């Protein structure tokens, strides 16, 4: 049996404007990004689950010394967002004045065009 819930499938989802995770068909736990084995109950029966993309900032940083791929964006904010459905995931954070970014701030998903891929981001709302 092949594994469906791949990094590639997640990235393809981003390119199509979808935030795709997995739901455990046994215990209902949601996973984002998707994974092949439920880490709550161990079940291997999972199905695709599309997240709404709304949530709030759990924690964040503003990067002064960037990765080479992100050099043009520096300084940029990146952090961990807790989605309204429950799971937490890392993303670029977009806000006009990044100095005013705060823990708890409401955000919605943003699909950011990178050089040759779509980067997961969240925009302050």
């Amino acid at each position, binding site marked *: 049996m092949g594994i469906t819930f791949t990094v590639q499938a997640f990235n393809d989802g981003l390119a199509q404007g979808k935030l795709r995770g997995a739901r455990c068909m046994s215990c209902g736990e949601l996973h984002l990004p998707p994974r092949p084995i439920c880490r709550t109950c161990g079940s291997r029966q999972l199905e695709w689950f599309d997240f709404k993309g709304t949530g709030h900032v759990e*924690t964040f*940083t503003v*990067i*002064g*010394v960037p990765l*080479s*791929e992100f050099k043009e964006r520096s300084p940029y904010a990146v952090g*961990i967002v807790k989605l309204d459905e429950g799971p937490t*995931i890392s993303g670029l954070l977009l806000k006009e004045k990044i100095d005013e970014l705060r823990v708890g701030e409401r955000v919605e998903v943003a699909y950011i065009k990178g050089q040759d891929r779509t980067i997961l981001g969240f925009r302050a709302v």
Partner: protein
Amino acid sequence: MTRFHHKIHADKTGREIFVEAALEAVDSVDKGLKLGGVESVFVGNFSNDVFEKQSHTGAMMADWLGINPKPAVRVEGACASSGVAFNLGVQSIASGLYDIVLVGGFEKMRSQTTEQVTDTLAMAADASYEASVGFTFPGLYASMATAYFHKYGTRWEELAAVTVKNHRNGALNPKAHFQSDIMSTAVKAGEGKGVKFKDELEFLSSSFNPVVAHPLRLFDCCPVSDGAAVVILAGEDVARRFTDTPVMVAGIGQASDTLALHDRQDFTSMRATRVAAENAYRLAGLSTKEIDVADVHDCFTIAEVIATEDLGFFPKGQGGKAAVEGVTGLKGDKPVNADGGLKAKGHPVGATGAAMAYEIFKQLRGEAGDHQVAGAEVGLAQNVGAAGATVTVQIFRRG
């Protein structure tokens, strides 16, 4: 161990610094040990494949130590590589397979620019889901700091106290990368620009200490260093043939956690540290109160604060305060990172776990020189891989 430094090893490769550290270890054995007596080699290394474009470093070190065909293996657990190598060495002896093994680690990082090192270190995080959205390695710890400040209502000034303490200790350690305290550094940095600082905090709050990943500034981060560290492990009965004052490995622990920080329940604590420590304390039959000296993984100042809480030294939210109040200072009740820590001693990633064991060994034998913790009998080392996805803990006591 070699001195950890950004320049002095520039004309050497990883194999030379590892051999240098190994020779110091072997030659310092009280009643003498020949390299040929070593039965197996465990080499901690994070990313020599990238840094020097040389893999297969386990066999390479056995070769360069002149002890082929003894088995050798390179162990990778990010920044905990040689903490893991150490535990595997202990396990190989406990299993009865070997009597004497050599464990160590090395990293040769300074062949790369800061930008390249930033990219390489990010490989220890989740490349597909963290680095892919722009998280750097300091950025992950900075996010822990943001979460920590938010949860406990504490401030960056507590982290600055860790910086000041560890640089003060590093100044007393001839093996440390940085050997000047923060005030001396401030005076020197300010001289050229005609700037004077009234105290450490004014310097650390100034533009001389730029933000690497908010809220962490340059002096919240360990430096990029080259270096190697090696220790020799032997079974208890065997060890007594070589020394009258061995240091005993009383307990070891290791744990894993999610590779991505975002998959954790709590960003202000490391479950892997708590689990590894619990196992080590239990094996040792010792408790947190009995630890006289500890080396913890302060790759960033926030990491020391969190480690001292996860190891049970202080209640949650109180680790920073302990640094401010001097409790973790060299003469405090719970000395932490007497050798300067990663912060001032340096952090050649793969060498760090072995360097911690080296430090605790010296401390418990009363051989730590100017940074000796008086009367230390029980010591602990905590080595963290990346943002806590691998953690090892060892507890040592005087033999």
